[in-house]
C-alpha cells in the first residue's frame, strides 16, 4: 500500500516554494497576456489590412509563432535572442514574459482578426456612407460588435497561456511546476508535489473561467434588449 502512503507534510515544508511559485505563475501569465493582447491587436488589425506591406509581415509573424513549439521559442529567446541583442541575460522573468507575450500575441491576433472579419461588411459600408473614416467606423461600429465575439476565445487563450506558462521552468523560472520539481528531486516523491501543482493550476484556471464568464455577462447586457429597456421611459 505504498500508493496511499502520502507524505503531505513534505509539501508543507516547501510551502514557501509553492506560494512563491503561484506568484511567479500569476505574474508571468498576466504580464504575458496583457502584452499579448496589446501586441495582438496591432497584429490582428494588420492582418485585416489590404495593404500588402502591412499584411504580409503580420501574417509571417503569426505563422511563425503558431507553427513552432512554445518550448523552442522560450529557449531561443532566453538563450539566443536576448543575450545576442542585449549582450546579457535579464533572468527568467524577462525572458519568460517576452516569450509569453510574443507567443500569445500570435494567437490573439488570429482571434482579433476573425472577430473583426465576422462582422457583416454592410456595417462598415453603412458607417462609411454616413461620412465616417475607416478608423472612426472601426472604433464606433465594428470593434464594439467584434469585441463581444472575441471575449470567449480570448478567455480560452488566457487559460491556455496560464498552463503554457509552466514551460518556463526549462529556463529555471521558479513557478509552480518548479516548486514541484524541487520537492520531487529532493525526496524522490512524485505523487504529492505534482498533484499539488496540478491542483494549484486547476484552481487558477477555475478562477479565470469564472472571471471570463463574468466579463462575458457584463458585455452582453447591451445585446440583451430586455435588460436595457427596463427603467427606460418610452417617449
Amino acid at each position: 500500500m505504498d500508493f496511499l502512503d502520502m507524505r503531505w507534510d513534505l509539501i508543507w515544508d516547501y510551502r514557501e516554494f509553492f506560494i512563491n511559485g503561484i506568484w511567479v505563475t500569476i505574474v508571468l501569465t498576466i504580464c504575458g497576456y496583457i502584452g499579448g493582447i496589446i501586441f495582438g491587436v496591432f497584429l490582428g488589425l494588420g492582418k485585416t489590412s489590404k495593404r500588402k506591406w502591412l499584411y504580409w509581415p503580420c501574417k509571417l509573424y503569426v505563422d511563425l509563432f503558431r507553427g513552432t513549439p512554445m518550448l523552442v521559442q522560450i529557449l531561443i529567446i532566453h538563450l539566443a535572442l536576448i543575450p545576442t541583442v542585449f549582450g546579457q541575460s535579464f533572468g527568467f522573468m524577462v525572458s519568460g514574459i517576452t516569450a509569453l507575450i510574443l507567443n500569445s500575441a500570435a494567437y490573439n491576433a488570429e482571434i482579433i482578426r476573425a472577430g473583426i472579419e465576422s462582422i457583416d461588411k454592410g456595417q462598415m459600408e453603412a458607417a462609411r456612407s454616413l461620412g465616417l473614416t475607416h478608423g472612426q467606423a472601426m472604433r464606433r461600429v465594428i470593434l464594439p460588435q467584434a469585441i463581444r465575439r472575441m471575449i470567449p476565445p480570448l478567455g480560452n487563450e488566457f487559460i491556455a497561456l496560464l498552463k503554457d506558462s509552466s514551460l518556463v521552468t526549462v529556463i529555471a523560472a521558479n513557478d509552480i511546476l518548479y516548486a514541484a520539481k524541487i520537492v520531487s528531486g529532493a525526496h524522490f516523491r512524485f505523487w504529492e508535489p505534482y498533484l499539488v501543482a496540478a491542483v494549484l493550476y486547476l484552481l487558477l484556471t477555475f478562477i479565470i473561467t469564472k472571471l471570463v464568464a463574468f466579463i462575458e455577462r457584463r458585455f452582453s447586457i447591451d445585446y440583451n434588449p430586455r435588460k436595457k429597456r427596463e427603467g427606460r421611459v418610452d417617449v
Partner: protein
Amino acid sequence: MIKVENLHKSFGKLDVLKGINYEVREKEVVCVIGPSGSGKSTFLRCINLLEEITDGAIYIEGVQVNDSKTDINLIRTEVGMVFQQFNLFPHMTVIENITMAPMFIRKLSKSEAENLALELLDKVGLREKAYNYPQQLSGGQQQRVAIARALAMKPKVMLFDEPTSALDPEMVKEVLDVMKQLAHEGMTMVVVTHEMGFAREVADRVVFMDGGYIVEQGQPEKLFDAPQNERTKAFLGKIL
C-alpha cells in the same frame, strides 16, 4: 446635381459598367430598373464611392468624387444611402443609430441630435421605438429607421439600393410611403428598385439598365407604356 461621365467599373476581368453617362438634376427622383446583374446597384454604389471607379468621372455639385484631392468622407456626409439589408448598427438603440453620425461628424450636442432624431422618427412614424434595439423591430421598421439615420446628416441626395427587396410583402408599402413623402418634399433621389408601381408613380425619370449600359431612359409613362428598345420591351414584358 450628380453628373456621371463615361463611368466604367470592372471587378477583375468582369466588366460591370461599360460607360455610363447620366445627369441627375436637383429635386429629381430617378428610378433605376433592370435585370439582376445589369450593374444598377454597382452604378449606385459608385456614386458615393463605395465601389472604386475604374474609369470615368462622377461629379456631385461640380466636385469630382473620384479625385484624389477630394475628401470623400465630406462628400459622403452630403449623400445619404439606404441599403437592401438595412445595415443598422445592432449594438446601438434606434436613437443612437440616428444620433451617432450627427454628433460625431456634425458635432451636434447630444440634446440637439436627439431632438433631430425624434423629429425624424416622427416623420417615419417610429417615435415610440426610439429606445428599442434594431433586432426588436420588423424589417419594414428597420428600413424606416435606416432612412431616418441617413436623413439625420441632412444630405442633399439620397441613394436607395433596392430598399424593399429584403422585406416581407406586407411591409413594402410602409417603406415606399416614407420614400414617396420624401420625394414630395423635394429630396433628390436615386432609387434602384424592382417596384415598378413606385417608379411609375414617383419617378421623374426612369433609367433602364442592362449589360452594363443605360439602354433606355425617359419619363415613366413613356418608358413603361411605349418602350423603344427591344431589351426594355422584353424586360418589361416579363415583369409587368
